[in-house]
């Protein structure tokens, strides 16, 4: 997930179209696929409990390059329950806070399944309710599991959902790879005309196969990427691991304003991964 300054602006905002033309079901003219559940976390558990260590690892700090995770993000990621814990109501709460911590003005959390679980192809979905306010940047995304061997962007990145707090009615789906990373990522946005992503849960998903990645919001397909759509190499034929995080500030989202209310929480009802069985 690297900086993409103008991709969004250039990309076609589906907005109204998404809600109307493609609101007629899951298939959207695509051949029905049948999936079997292979991995999930429904985040059931006692309030205050940190996410299941058998499924998730924490990224702590300000990034390996000490540069705000490559994006000048403002938060310090911790593994404290104040920043990531079950809410007792069946959700994972990743909470960004305005607090001075290790030289940073904000704290938050980023968890991943690297080395624990990864998969190539299949359906990856999460049901999420967004935080809100300028400068908040939550995401549900994946990186190629071979990142340590081939480095980014050769490992590939699939952003199933990204969101900017100052545009609470929009989400964005992207891929990054060699020749189309950072600001040149391939992106499409999905928007509501009369609703927002921070007032209720919505289901964000990709269905990923040998020669396609389809992006869905609440069962509505809003983007299909095929190898021929990419300006560079298709690097999506290997296992990817999952990441959930809430960033504060940074190149992608801009600064939070003094009026941005904190703390802000992304609630994740569940994450589920399927394999296609037919």
């Amino acid at each position: 997930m690297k900086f993409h300054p103008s991709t969004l602006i250039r990309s076609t905002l589906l907005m109204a179209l998404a809600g109307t033309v493609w609101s007629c079901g899951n298939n959207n003219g695509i051949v029905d696929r049948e999936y079997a559940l292979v991995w999930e976390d429904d985040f059931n558990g006692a309030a205050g409990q940190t996410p299941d260590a058998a499924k998730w690892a924490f990224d702590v700090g300000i990034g390996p390059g000490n540069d705000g995770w490559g994006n000048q993000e403002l938060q310090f990621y911790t593994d404290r329950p104040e920043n990531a814990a079950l809410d007792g109501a069946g959700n994972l709460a990743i909470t960004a806070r305005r607090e001075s911590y290790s030289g940073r003005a904000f704290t938050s959390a980023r968890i991943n399944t690297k080395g624990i679980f990864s998969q190539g192809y299949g359906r990856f979905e999460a049901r999420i309710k967004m935080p809100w306010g300028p400068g908040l940047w939550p995401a549900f995304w994946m990186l190629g599991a071979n990142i340590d061997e081939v480095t980014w962007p050769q490992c590939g990145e699939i952003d199933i959902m990204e969101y900017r707090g100052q545009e609470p009615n929009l989400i964005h789906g992207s891929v990054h790879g060699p020749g189309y990373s950072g600001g040149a990522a391939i992106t499409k946005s999905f928007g509501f005309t009369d609703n927002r992503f921070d007032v209720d849960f919505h289901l964000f998903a990709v269905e990923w196969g040998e020669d396609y990645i389809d992006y869905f919001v609440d069962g509505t397909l809003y983007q299909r990427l095929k190898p021929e759509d990419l300006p560079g190499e298709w690097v999506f034929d290997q296992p990817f691991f999952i990441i959930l995080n809430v960033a504060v500030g940074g190149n992608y989202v801009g600064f939070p304003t003094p009026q941005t209310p904190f703390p802000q929480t992304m609630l994740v009802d569940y994450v589920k991964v399927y394999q296609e069985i037919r």
Partner: protein
Amino acid sequence: MKKMQYPASVYALLAALVLLTVAGCERELEDLEPAAFPTTPEVFIDGFSPGLSYAAFGGSKVTAFEVDNEVKYQGAASMRFAVPDAGDPRGAYAGGGYFTAIGRDLSGYDALTFWARASKSATIDLVGFGNDFGEAKFQTVLRAVKVNTNWQKYIIPIPDPSKLKQERGMFFYSEGPEDELGYTFWIDELKFEKLGTIAHPRPFILEGQDQVFSVETGQQLNIGGLGVTFNMPTGIDQRIEAAASYFTFASSNPAAASVSSTGVVTVLDTGTTVITAKVGGTDAAGSMTLTSGGVATGPTVPAPVPTVNADSVISLFSNAYTNVTVDTWNTRWQFSTAEDFDIQVAGDDVKRYRALNFVGIEFTSQPIDARAMTHFHLDIWTPDPTELPKAFKVLLVDFGANGTFGGGDDTSHELSFTRPTLVSEQWVSLDIPLSSFTGLVNRGHLAQLVLSGDVPNLYLDNVYFYNAGSTAPSGPTVAAPTPTRGAADVISVFSDAYTNIPGTDFFPNWGQATTVSQIQIAGNNTLRYSGLNYQGTQFASSLDVSGMTHLHLDVWTSNSTALNVYTISPGPVEKAVALTVPTNGWSSVDIPLTQFSPVALANLIQFKFDGNGDIYLDNLYFYKAGSGGTAPTTAAPTPSFSAANVISVFSDAYTNVAGTDLNPNWGQATQVTQAPIAGNNTLIYTGLNYQGIQLGSEQNISSFTHLHLNVWTANSTALQVFIISPGPAEKPYTLTVPTSGWSSVNIPLTEFTPVVDLTKVFQFKFEGNGTIYLDNILFYK
């Protein structure tokens, strides 16, 4: 009239209509819908929407709003608002409201939106809706709306759309000049919308604060600071003010405090209550916690009605008088916790203070000149304990000649009152001689009263200054004038100045109702008859006053309307002489003994007074007139200094300093008169304690060498003269008294330096006793 014929088809049509009507009657009850109000969202798109009217606010420039066909966001027209320059005689600001005669059902929308731009960057004071020029139950206000020269969209969220079933107030605005300059802004596409992108309503009361109040039964408090913060489609928060009717208020303890639908809390009983609120099911931030101590203890009877004549009063607060301007009864100075209330006790206005540690009361805009006043009065009532050492303190502050705080000329003094004066749960009338405020040197510009002490609950009434010399409820405050006649010419019955005849019974039992007492007034023994009907005085043995010419007496009464004095010889033979009452201060009466004929002057046995009221008497004595020795019979010698070398204060021989006040009110007991003696004007001090002279202007006498004056006194045993420069800086010089005839005194001015600044002499003062005759008070070189 010609009968109309209808064709058959018309009849068929009519029949069909009848059928339809019949069919309509068969509707089920559940099909009936309540009378619906229009849901029209448009307010102004390219013109007024149906039913919309405009009215300008009072005081605004009524022509500020016009429809503009040139500048518009889209369509054919916009609303143009011309904000006037400051000082525009046609109106100080632009403001008005748009309303409909029939309410609209706006419950399907979540915001009022519009596009706006302006001729320059500016901040519109407020825009909103829900102002129907009536109750404005659902008024909603967005303040400080920043506009610039670009068209931008603005959103005013509806705090709770479900409330707006019948709203008439579609839009209103108010904006004044910016930096005194007017400008123009435009609004277009003004309409209600269902945006769906406004989220996270966070209502608040009391600006979101948890406030705590100590209250009492009967008290009412208004819950203000009402609004809702919304997260806008841009992710930022926006605060709007929302009327109370959007809120549902709740009391945690309705028996102790109730809250109305409009957010008015009424304290009903003792106990602790928390008032909270919701909007549309969402809890509002902020709360009001009330701790009620129950019914406040206060006076049930009004304070005593003042009896001082209004002519002698400067009143700050009393229903008995016309009050002067008091700027505030609670300055709310830092660290003061006092709260003040205007209450009534049996119809009488009373000031009530609660939590009083100290309270400032200011009359700075019109300082009070109390120089002609002698007393400060106030009535206080407190439910608080008053056992020693609990005190109530009164501080008076004079701002001095500059009339403002500071400047080096302020003077003040605080007095403290304790038991037995201070008592709980009854009215205490304080009549405080201003002379008791010894540090309050000046009383010409009184501007502050500060009350403090250990009585946090205080009721206050009848706060006024008065002059007790003319009339007072409590009798004379100054002594009767000290007699000056030589003792050899006097037979005294009652006087501190002479040796009185022994054994006199001042309270013989003659069956009278009168109460007799002897009291000290300014250190002088005085005879008081209270509730006079009649009263005798029995001499121990008969007096022979046939060698005397007059009976002298000093009398003081504020309420007597009839008073006679009798001398009595055996028989009894008696004769009444009427005295003039009531008196204006002490009245010195000299009655020729011939008026008592046929009473036997050689054999007097009794006095008698009859009449009514409360009478004060002093210096009852017989004397022989014409024997001399009590007053000069010749003029003071005329000075012979060259006029060019003289600054004269009091002399017939020179031009005196203009505007000099020979009797400034410094609280003295001295009576000052001027009388010609052998054709020469003479200054007379009777009953001197001290006496000032206020020069009409400050005098620079540094080039002069001496103070000259002529003095004559037969009975003074102490006399000093002071000259005074501002500060005050003063120094006395002792004069030799009594004098043998007129004494001419020449005092080197070096006697007064270096204490007194001779470049700025502005006052004289004499101190001592007796009756003093003065003349030719002047400086010379």
